[in-house]
């Protein structure tokens, strides 16, 4: 017994080192597995508040490009409205409470955005108080950004599409073939679409959209265009490089998507999983 205690006292620095190292490895491994990295996250009030403060200053430098983007978005929405034959007077009469859309969009501001690492996260300034929940989709006017992963009272962390853990269903606009969208960690403007069956007819420049096969994103949200493609080793699937519509290095405002039918869909799906 005496010897054990002596051993512990003699090696207390090494033991403390090993203990802390083990702890940091646990955090690291958790951060590499989807939906588990909850302990060390920037959604707490300290880092969230700090990034909000920093963002309130740096926002001024992006006002011009933000304005331009909003104007472009408005222009496009007006064009869509007139194409549908609705003028702005009748639209104003529609109340959102009577308007039974399956998806509701909430705006949020990006207060931290990473794109230079392998596992990138985005922090937004809306949280549980604004009824943001994990597994909601996040988009901009141009295309998808990621999925809400972790929420606190006032902040949420978004797992960016530029994250090695991110897997999103996506497919071709012109046909029904689909695959999963992943990122190889190299270029923040190019993501990869995998497991698209070889029967699909591809041409460079084809549009890739979300496919509505999950409950997260509605069908038809833009992702990017095909940059190039080739068959994988098994010769039965395509590997496609997709050039994103979004500039992931410059995201100011985003929209979160809440699926109103989520509960209903889940309740139908649940018994089949058992």
């Amino acid at each position: 017994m005496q010897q054990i205690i002596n051993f512990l006292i003699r090696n207390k620095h090494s033991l403390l080192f090993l203990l802390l190292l083990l702890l940091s490895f646990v955090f690291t491994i958790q951060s590499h597995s989807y939906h588990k990295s909850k302990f060390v996250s920037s959604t707490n009030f300290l880092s969230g508040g700090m990034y909000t403060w920093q963002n309130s200053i740096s926002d001024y430098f992006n006002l011009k490009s933000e304005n331009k983007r909003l104007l472009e978005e408005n222009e496009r929405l007006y064009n869509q409205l007139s194409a549908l034959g609705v003028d702005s007077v009748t639209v104003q009469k529609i109340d959102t409470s009577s308007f039974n859309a399956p998806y509701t969009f909430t705006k949020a501001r990006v207060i931290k955005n990473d794109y230079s690492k392998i596992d990138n996260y985005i922090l937004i300034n809306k949280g549980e108080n604004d009824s943001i929940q994990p597994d909601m989709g996040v988009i901009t006017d141009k295309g998808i950004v990621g999925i809400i992963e972790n929420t606190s009272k006032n902040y949420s962390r978004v797992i960016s599409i530029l994250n090695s853990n991110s897997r999103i269903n996506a497919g071709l606009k012109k046909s029904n073939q689909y695959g999963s969208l992943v990122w190889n960690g190299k270029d923040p403007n190019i993501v990869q679409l995998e497991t698209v069956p070889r029967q699909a007819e591809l041409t460079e420049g084809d549009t890739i959209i979300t496919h509505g096969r999950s409950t997260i994103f509605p069908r038809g949200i833009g992702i990017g265009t095909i940059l190039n493609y080739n068959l994988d080793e098994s010769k039965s699937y395509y590997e496609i490089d997709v050039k994103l519509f979004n500039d992931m290095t410059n995201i100011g405002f985003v929209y979160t998507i809440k699926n109103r039918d989520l509960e209903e869909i889940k309740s139908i799906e649940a018994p089949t999983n058992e």
Partner: protein
Amino acid sequence: MNKEVVANIGRFVILILVQVLVLNHVNFMGYLNPYIYIIFILLAPININKSLFLLISFILGLTIDMFGDSGGVHAAASLVIAFFRPIALRSVFGLSYEFQTVKLSNISFGEKLGYVILMVLTHHIVLFSLEIFNFSHILLIAKKTLFSSLFTIVITMLVLVLFRRNDS
């Protein structure tokens, strides 16, 4: 003594703020960021309590992780260089470290550079191995470690030379 403690606490806070608010957003050439918060570990008093030093280094890294959403990679890397700092000091300064006569504020440029290179390289190898966490990407790890280390070493040397205290 008290002055030294205050100086170290101030350095701890300032380095974290500079790191997370400015240097994490540099992204030079797309992905390069200098990680100069380890200056705190480099400049910590040589006769500091070892357990306390390990614990502070771990908290320093974990704070950076919290701001950067990187799990525990900075905590692990900081912990490793804090643990191996005596070895680095001994190999660079030799006998003068053994007799506790070396002062980090007044050593020659060459010795300082050797010490910084040794510590930064160790830190970055651990950091990027854990961050990428995939040995099929070993070339990417090597590339990131090499270029980031160069960047960090240059910035660290600049900071050490510019903010040197002239109290000797």
